[in-house]
């Protein structure tokens, strides 16, 4: 019997996705330590990574990073296949869909902050619908909608600003060392 060796050679894109996903997972784990007043209301710091990847590397990579993060972080936190996981997955899918549309907004007028807030609204919208349809089959869940909407605006704004600041930083870094290294600096460098 001959042993067959399957060798996977990661492309530059693969490593980039892995690196970004790792950063996003780390942020999710850090965030899980923060006590939260209400289930479902959390800053979503990992979305900063998603926003940066979306702007720099496009929507497809952002989808990879976001979904890898949802699965891996939930596995690490012991939440995989728990209700919270499905809420998070629904939110992630909805916000990725929203980002897919929002990336075509004219970039002269709309930046990461817009992307962030729109995605946050898609996120809470999907979560509320899944919660209403599956976990709490009562219209009472919508009673919390204003709280979630408020969180979406505040955290969406903050995450968007952080993403925009990091993107600016990265652009400046690249302008500085672009000619030296001949390739763009990675956000996780």
């Amino acid at each position, binding site marked *: 019997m001959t042993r067959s060796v399957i060798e996977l050679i990661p492309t530059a894109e693969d490593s980039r996705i892995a690196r970004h996903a790792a950063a996003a997972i780390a942020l999710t784990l850090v965030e899980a330590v923060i006590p939260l007043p209400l289930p479902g209301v959390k800053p979503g710091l990992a979305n900063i990574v998603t926003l940066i990847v979306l702007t720099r590397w496009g929507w497809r990579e952002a989808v990879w990073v976001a979904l890898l993060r949802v699965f891996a972080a939930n596995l690490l936190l012991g939440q995989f296949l728990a209700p919270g996981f499905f809420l998070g997955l629904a939110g992630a899918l909805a916000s990725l869909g929203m980002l897919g549309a929002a990336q075509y907004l*004219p970039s002269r007028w709309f930046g990461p902050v817009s992307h962030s807030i729109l995605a946050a609204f898609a996120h809470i919208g999907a979560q509320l619908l899944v919660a209403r349809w599956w976990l709490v089959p009562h219209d009472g869940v919508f009673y919390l909608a204003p709280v979630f909407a408020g969180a979406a605006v505040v955290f969406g*704004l903050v995450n968007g600003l952080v993403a925009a600041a990091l993107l600016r930083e990265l652009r400046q870094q690249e302008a500085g060392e672009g000619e030296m290294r001949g390739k763009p600096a990675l956000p996780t460098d």
Partner: protein
Amino acid sequence: MGAGWRELLRPGDWAVVALGAALCIYAGMGLWTAGAPDGVIVRAGGKVFAEADLAAARRIEVPGPLGLTLIEIEPGRARVASDPGPRQYCVRQGWLDRAGAVAICAPNEVSLVLTGRGNDYDSLGY
């Protein structure tokens, strides 16, 4: 960092922030004022005797087997002002001011219910 964070927001971003905040306030007002009643239903002997809105003050006299029950309506609230029943439970409930609130004068077979958008509970069985 710190300086010039305003540059991070493009004109459309401000609009999105404003729109999000407006949506919040709109959702808050729409959902959290749902407990306000907008009308009353008065029943006598199990049948609807009168329906009224809570906009203007008025009095309704409802005949029952024991005599007249007097319902008093004011803008935003209603009560059983007097009732010939022996224990006066429905009268002592006082003013009802939430959608779904109920006062029942069982001996005289009269009930008063406040109706409204989004009845979150009724005062008998929540």
